[in-house]
């Protein structure tokens, strides 16, 4: 895919999230799991949403599916194919889920219903949206979907129960269910975290193939930078509920502009890199219940100065299609300043 098509600003994003905030009231306080995140995914594009645990990745995705339950509060703007979806009624959401936007969860061990055969579960995904389809047709289409995601021999395996499948196969079944109604947007929440390494690669290959074939807008939530390098077109880095950097995958890996992204990259072992201790990021992320006045990363950042804690830095362009929320963004990206 050409860079123009991937980064063309004229194309309407399949998923556009603007100023998303998700809050959960707890005893006499409010936890802001997401504090004003903005990102978008176009058709045919794979965007990796990266960040450590608690950075708001999964909650952002759930908000985009309309799955944040009360008492959680969602504000901002989420558009799926241009249609604003926040504030939709539950029955309106149901027509979107599966058909416009679908999701694959982290743990395939628990996301399949242990009481039903997998063929029936895939067929159910079809029948949920099309009551006209007969049981028989739904079953046949379900078998075809299983075949497509690499469960062979599909007709025989369709009669298996989830516990008879390996983790990778179960994740394939989850993917089959997610694509059953040709959604425009597919959100994959750490789809390979629970799998072993060889299986991870196969599942990622499958996702990439399906994405090309169906022109999916794929939002891949992960904390695995290896996965990011292998599959993503663009990367969105989240920290403490905010987007701190976004840009093309190459730019992120070669000239990351945010100290947090740099630190994240430095904490991952690389083949061929000089031997030495991996650099863990000092300190820990802020408690989501506390509100930090300035940059949330400032307390852990070696470059932090007074203006960093004074107010939250905006996302500013540091290169074409590459933005970072750091006052030193330009200098870090250019290599003039090293955190």
């Amino acid at each position, binding site marked *: 895919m050409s860079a123009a098509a991937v980064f063309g600003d004229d194309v309407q994003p399949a998923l556009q999230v603007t100023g998303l905030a998700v809050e959960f009231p707890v005893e006499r306080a409010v936890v802001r799991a997401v504090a004003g995140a903005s990102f978008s995914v176009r058709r045919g594009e794979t965007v990796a949403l990266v960040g450590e645990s608690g950075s708001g990745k999964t909650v952002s995705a759930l908000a985009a*599916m309309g*799955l944040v339950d009360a008492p959680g509060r969602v504000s901002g703007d989420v558009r799926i194919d241009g249609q604003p979806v926040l504030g939709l009624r539950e029955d309106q959401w*149901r*027509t*979107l*889920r*599966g*058909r416009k936007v*679908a*999701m694959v*969860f982290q*743990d395939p061990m*628990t*996301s*399949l*219903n*242990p*009481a*039903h*055969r997998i063929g029936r579960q895939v067929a*159910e*995904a079809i029948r*949920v*949206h099309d009551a006209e389809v007969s049981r028989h047709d739904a079953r046949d289409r379900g078998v075809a979907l299983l075949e497509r995601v690499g*469960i*062979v*021999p599909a007709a*025989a395996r369709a*009669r*298996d*129960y989830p*516990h*008879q*499948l*390996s983790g*990778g*196969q179960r994740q394939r079944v*989850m993917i089959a*269910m*997610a694509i*059953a*109604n040709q959604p425009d947007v597919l959100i994959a929440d750490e789809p390979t975290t629970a799998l072993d390494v*060889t*299986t991870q690669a*196969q599942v990622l290959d499958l996702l990439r193939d399906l994405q090309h074939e169906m022109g999916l807008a794929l939002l891949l939530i992960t904390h695995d930078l290896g996965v990011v390098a292998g599959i993503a077109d663009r990367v969105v880095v989240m920290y403490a509920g905010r987007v701190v950097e976004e840009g093309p995958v190459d730019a992120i890996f070669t000239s990351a502009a945010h100290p947090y992204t740099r630190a994240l990259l430095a904490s991952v072992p690389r083949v061929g890199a000089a031997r030495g201790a991996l650099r863990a990021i000092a300190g820990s992320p802020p408690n989501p219940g506390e509100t930090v006045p300035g940059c949330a990363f400032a307390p852990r950042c070696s470059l932090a100065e007074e203006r960093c804690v004074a107010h939250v830095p905006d996302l500013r362009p540091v290169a074409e299609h590459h933005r970072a929320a750091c006052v030193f963004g330009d200098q870090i990206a250019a290599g003039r300043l090293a955190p």
Partner: protein
Amino acid sequence: MSMRVGDESGRARAESNDAGLAPTATVRSPRGGEWRRALRAFRRHTVAMIGLCFLVFVFLACFVGVRFAPSPTEQSLLEATHGPSWDHWFGTDELSRDELARVLHGGQVTLKLAIGVAILTTVIGVLIGAVAGFYRGWVDELLMRFTDLWIALPALPFLAVAVSIGTVSLGPLGSVDLGGPLGMTILLSLLLWGSIARVVRGATLSLREREFVDAARTIGSTNRRIIWRHVLPNCLGPITVNATLVVAEAILVESTLSFLGFGIQPPTPSWGNLLTNAISNIEDTWWLVVFPGAVIFLTVLAVNFVGDGLRDAFDPRRQVRA
């Protein structure tokens, strides 16, 4: 192909398939669904199997064997009331009627009642429990307080009043004699559905947080579909166990109430009301107490054994690997 293979080779095949290799053979794993697994575990539960055999025997005796027993109403005027004999295995009662025949006929009434109560309590309890657990919030609060109300209801005064009302009209559905078998089934169901509702609510509360419920929501499933397809099939274990235990409870409660005169009213025989008169003459006609009493005791014990067996069978922690 229907080769039987163990779990390990099934797992091994799964892995090899994942590595992109063609499976070596299309052998189906012998492990089926939860029900089949539970059935296998149940069959290995000796005490439960003994209980089940005894129950089958009691049922056959009450519903089939009864045809070969003497009439329960025929009075043998030539014979005085006497103890067990070759002609009358359980002896004869104070009106010289065959006690065995009366126990078997009473068993028909009591067993039908117990099973009816189990079915009815399950329907009410599952419905209320699933809705309360799934929707939570004020729905849960309302339904569970309603459940508490029925659980807290003092059984004896409630039944005494209900039975004294006698026949009530249900409009187009006809009328029900609250002191008869059908009336008692309904009354006991009203008293006993609470525990099933609580069990199902608890199971639903935990099941609704499972990821496959979220997954079902992400494909656009409605709440009703989620309850039917994803929540209830996964609490069939506790539901079955509870229904079984309700059978035992219903037999005991019916016996107690009929014995006290609040239950099924004579001349309809039931295990409970067989004991009513017998107990006052226990020194002379001990067999009229011992035999029906033993039948009640053993049947309830057997039902409880089966219930224990089912509970173990559905408990994954106790599962022995095949």
